[in-house]
């Protein structure tokens, strides 16, 4: 069975609702994550609750990635 990471993403430093989604790759600091139209970088990851079956439950904090200016 494939391990599935259910991740609670919380954006720091701004009023953002964050997101919950499943991924097959364990999030690690430095990863880039796209939520809707915006891109964020993972800052910190913790295991939120113990795993159950093939599901692991993670909490990751995100910081916004500055949008590139048009050339």
């Amino acid at each position, binding site marked *: 069975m*494939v391990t*599935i990471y*259910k991740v*609670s993403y*919380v*954006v720091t430093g701004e009023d*953002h*609702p*964050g*997101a*919950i*989604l*499943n*991924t097959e790759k364990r999030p690690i600091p430095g990863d880039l994550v796209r*939520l*809707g139209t915006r891109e964020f970088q993972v800052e910190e990851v913790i295991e*939120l*609750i113990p795993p*159950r*079956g*093939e*599901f692991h*439950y993670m*909490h990751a904090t995100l910081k916004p990635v500055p949008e590139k200016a048009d050339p």
Partner: protein
Amino acid sequence: MDPLSILQSVELFEGLTSEELRALAELCHERSFGNGEVITRQGEPGEELYIVYEGFVEVVRNAESSERAPRTVVHLGSGQIFGEMALLDRGPRSATVKSASDHARLLVIHRDDFERACEGNHHLGYVVMRNIAADLSFKLRHRHLTGR
């Protein structure tokens, strides 16, 4: 993508046998929504459970209130469910849910089909209800972490 392979990656169905998963997959209907399209509306009755398997949806409180400012509570992506509260307690929808992707794809299970499946197979019913409780708990933890 067939419903069975989608259901295998959804926590709601963790712990079910292959036969039980196949039975539930037969109850699922697929729907797609464009960006901003309303899927459920706060205050309206609801009889369906939704499973996101592609794209994102946005959960908004007071989306159409003239007295309170709209507030996005969370974005839900692949593998997440919504609509479970009205499905279980038969109350009105607690929030408006809109597509936040150009092409959000969902699986939908109607309450009558869902209840028949749970009542007809008590193992299936127990596992799914336990997983709904765990999902609600996870959403509450997320909400505490966001401070919303």
